[in-house]
């Protein structure tokens, strides 16, 4: 990996741009994970599974 900030990679993005796109993906996954966790907890409260 080169550290050249301005090099445009075959994706059409340079390093910082790619990192930003990646950060949206990571943020989305985190929020999604938190939401899924809360939803599961709530379902477990009303209709418990696993005993």
């Amino acid at each position, binding site marked *: 990996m080169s550290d050249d900030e301005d090099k445009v990679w*075959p*994706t*059409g*993005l*340079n390093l*910082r*741009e790619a*990192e*930003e*796109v990646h950060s*949206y993906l990571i*943020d*989305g996954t985190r*929020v*999604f994970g*938190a*939401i*899924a966790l*809360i*939803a599961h907890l*709530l*379902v477990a*409260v*009303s*209709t*418990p599974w696993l005993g």
Partner: protein
Amino acid sequence: MPKLRDIALRRLASLTPKYLPFADVATDDVPLSRLLRLSLFQVTVGMALVLLIGTLNRVMIVELSVPATLVAGMLALPLIFAPFRTLIGFKSDTHRSALGWRRAPYIWKGTLYQFGGFAIMPFALLVLSGYGEAIDAPRWIGLSAAALAFLLVGAGVHMVQTVGLALATDLVKDEDHPKVVGLMYVMLLVGMVISAIVYGALLTNYTPGRLIQVIQGSAVVTVALNLTALWKQEARDRTRAREMETAKHERFSVAWRALTNRPGAKPLLVLIGLGTFGFGMADVLLEPYGGQTLGFSVAQTTLLTAIFAAGTLIGFAIASKALSAGSAPLQLAAMGAAVGIPGFLAIILSSVALGPALFVAGTLFVGLGAGLFGHATLTATITDAPAGRVGLSIGAWGAVQATCAGTGVLLAGIVRDVLVGLSPATGLSAQTPYNIVFGIEIAFLVATVAVALPMLMKSGRRPKAKREPVPQNNPVEVS
């Protein structure tokens, strides 16, 4: 071998932009199809509004037997976030991004919140109503989960609408702004009407399972529509990205003061608040009014909503046309408020004389006034926005508009309930509580016109308003 690698790389490079969510070229002329696609975010906003104010309101009280005061409190929660629209708009104006994006990240975040809220909402409501084993669960779990769900949806709606409108403003030329505003309003109305019909049909036979399906289905549809709307709309811009890096960070309070200290900015916000409040109280009361005092059937009251919507659409159309032709937005806003006054008068009088015909005419007029007023005030906000502060301006508009519309709806319900509760004791007739609320609305619309008139006179003296004079008899002075 290196040749093969070159070919592969070139293929990759030509292929990938298709699968990346940004437009590479910002064309001067944005085709209508692209604007239509962008306006899909308004459909999701309309969907969320109908679900919160209409559908869930009923489902929570009737099917889940949650106390009405608690329901009203929960539904009022998203209102808390309405003032933050200014902050969201400002942050999107001054956002720093390596991609040169200002709006897209916020629409994406707002979509996530909307999705998250809808995803946990059905379970939160079931726990709140004590469904299944939840009857033994501590009360705070259901309460806090439901509050979180409503807050998330509310925050998402505020973000998506504010920043989405700012993006739409960014994309088109100045003279096309009235048309875009019209398009956005129409799509909001379309989203509300379609989702009201769909939710009504889906929830006729209520089961807890169906509730989960419907609300989580809304979550998926929201993400799908918003992503479709956002796809390739905002251009990637390396020059702008570099400018963002070096741009001096302005404080929100400074920008806010600069915005509100411009001449005519504060009166405009007051005008928006008064008028929106005046029209906002009508929405929820027209149907029960028709049912209780004029003996309309359910099908007929649904028709009333259609008539109201038709009036609003006509208002949007007139406003789009007049504003594109160069008439002053303020003048149209005042006209809209002025048209609403005889409309409400007709509605009040219909309980005394002439009955349904007058009532329908009044409904149409109120719809027309609301359409004119809404369109004209948003257009005024956008055209008056200082350079680089479009998001902040639209945020201020949205904060005032959402707060006043929301409190209008809530207050109308409360005032009516209180008065209905009083009537057996005091011997009031069925229409009196409604007529009092409609009377309050007339008072607010009169105040709106009263605020608008001095502004109009002032702007008439300002050389800026020296556009093509549009010949029209101004009904402001008449009423």
